[in-house]
């Protein structure tokens, strides 16, 4: 079975040149960094806040904060990882202002006893992309990811949508690597389970046991 590989390759040296120019006061270089990452920051912000206006605010606030703190960026990590950390913090502040925080532990060890495993006999066939048009699929994906706890959603979007490595995700979120891996597994399995309700083959005699 094929494996999943991150889809972003970042030319670090070129990026660092832009950062150094921006640090010296070159605003065009900073604008280039904005151009490079504004789409990513917007996606991350909207995944976390689930609100378009909040996401717009987060994009502006995250880049302004990056600009005004650029001298503090030590260049030990990628600029993008540093920016993501700022953006995630801004997005979480927005979210918590709107929604009271629930104290649910997300980092318990994943218990996968054999009797609690998902039971499946039917694969997704035909492919979901063939069953739904773009708008319908987007609607399903939006509703599905909205149902995930924020802590799982954030790890999933950074790792699987934005292509950060496990280490970069841990750094951006201030989490341990085992915590990132545990949350990612739970996020992937929960999303799969939720999508399964839409995509499971409905043929008679197939499906439920």
């Amino acid at each position, binding site marked *: 079975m094929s494996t999943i590989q991150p889809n972003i390759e970042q030319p670090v040296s070129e990026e660092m040149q832009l950062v150094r120019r921006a640090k010296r006061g070159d605003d065009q270089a900073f604008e280039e960094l904005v151009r490079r990452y504004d789409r990513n920051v917007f996606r991350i912000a909207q995944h976390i806040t689930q609100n378009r206006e909040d996401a717009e605010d987060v994009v502006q606030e995250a880049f*302004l904060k990056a600009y005004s703190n650029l001298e503090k960026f030590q260049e030990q990590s990628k600029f993008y990882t540093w920016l993501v950390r700022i953006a995630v913090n801004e997005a979480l502040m927005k979210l918590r202002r709107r929604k009271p925080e629930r104290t649910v532990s997300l980092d318990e060890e994943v218990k996968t006893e054999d009797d609690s495993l998902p039971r*499946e006999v039917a694969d997704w066939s035909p492919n979901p992309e063939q069953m739904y048009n773009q708008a319908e699929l987007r609607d399903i994906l939006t509703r599905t990811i909205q149902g995930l706890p924020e802590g799982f959603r954030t790890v999933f979007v950074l790792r699987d*949508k934005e292509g950060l490595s496990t280490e970069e995700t841990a750094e951006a979120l201030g989490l341990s690597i085992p915590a990132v891996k545990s949350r990612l597994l739970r996020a992937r399995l929960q999303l799969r389970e939720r*999508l399964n309700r839409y995509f499971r083959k409905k043929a008679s005699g197939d499906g439920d046991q």
Partner: protein
Amino acid sequence: MKCSEFLNELTNYLDGVLDARTKSELDDHLAWCHNCYVVCDTTRKTIEIYRDSELYELPEDLRVRLRSAIMTKCSAHKKSNPPSS
């Protein structure tokens, strides 16, 4: 290998970060366990569907507006905090 052990390694398996021996054990498990095969395959599809989706794309007109607002704020910040040289 038990199904629970397979599931615990699912993320590492899909990310292709396992050593050859563990990967081979998981491949063997998948070859006979249809349930785990389906769970693994649909999890991989879940990731691919999200990755390929155009969820929360930034529209170009909004993008231009946001970038302009960002650079205006940066410029104002620079004026009120001139670099100390």
